[in-house]
């Protein structure tokens, strides 16, 4: 399924993601990683540590509704794989981000911005891995796209 190239809105959205990362560092002194925020919210820990992460999660969840109120349209979500594949993918992503200590936001934004060696390695590896996976699924195994 083809999607439109949207350089300007994507750059703007990216800038907002960067702004969120800078704001959380300025106020709470933390990196803005989706994996860390979710994990820190669900595993046992001090109330203080869990509370801000839960507040951040609620903020994330309210974003599509806010956009709907402002623009009248929901963010587009086109699922292009089967339900079993979503389940498998969820389990694999959960395992990978836990072992790798982060995902696209933690390593890919905050880590790169800090020029962290671990994050640079992680980003190169997960990008190459995702590229190879999509190539294999679409062009070798010939999954419908």
């Amino acid at each position, binding site marked *: 399924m083809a*999607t*439109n190239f949207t*350089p300007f809105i994507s750059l703007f959205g*990216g*800038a*907002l*993601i*960067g702004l*969120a*990362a*800078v704001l959380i*560092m*300025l106020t709470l*002194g933390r990196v803005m990683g*989706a994996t860390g*925020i*979710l994990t820190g919210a*669900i*595993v046992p820990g001090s109330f203080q540590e869990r509370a*801000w992460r839960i*507040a951040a*999660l609620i*903020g*994330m*969840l309210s*974003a*599509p*509704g806010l956009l709907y109120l402002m623009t009248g349209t929901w*963010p587009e*979500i*086109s*699922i292009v794989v089967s*339900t079993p594949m979503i*389940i498998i*993918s969820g*389990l*694999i992503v*959960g*395992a*990978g*981000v*836990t*072992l*790798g*200590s*982060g995902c*696209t*936001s933690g390593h*890919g*934004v905050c*880590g790169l911005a800090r020029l962290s060696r*671990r994050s640079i390695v992680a980003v190169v590896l997960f*990008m190459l*891995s*995702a590229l190879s*996976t*999509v*190539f294999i699924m*679409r062009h070798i195994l010939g999954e419908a*796209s």
Partner: protein
Amino acid sequence: MRLAVAYLVGLIFGVGISLSGMSNPAKVLNFFDVAGSWDPSLGFVMGGAVLISFFGYRSVLSRSQPLFEPSFSLPTRTNVDMRLASGALIFGIGWGLAGFCPGGALPAVGTGNKSVLLFVLTMTAGIIITRQLDSHFSSKSHTPLGSIKR
């Protein structure tokens, strides 16, 4: 105040994710499909995010402390090990299979889309199972779990 700030930051992050297209699996998969229906948009998302945070961090981290905390809590580990490498490779496989990453999927739960919810639930299960296995095995051997601070 801390909670209000955290909520606002989550909201800004979620609006950025939603506008940018990161929560649309079709767009994410097309970013990686350079040999097919390639859509380079997500390169602009990463570019915008890293640019702002790179310069923003320079300015913020030159302060002696954050506004509402006594000190900055930055990841301290610097060693590149097998655990980091294998975790990143595994994450990439999962990301390439369905087109969801944690940061893209979490805000998208707010749309009420059932597939997104299913992804987030199974991803959460994956996180919990991996942590359990990890604490089980690492009680006998080496390093405890990653740099997620507890």
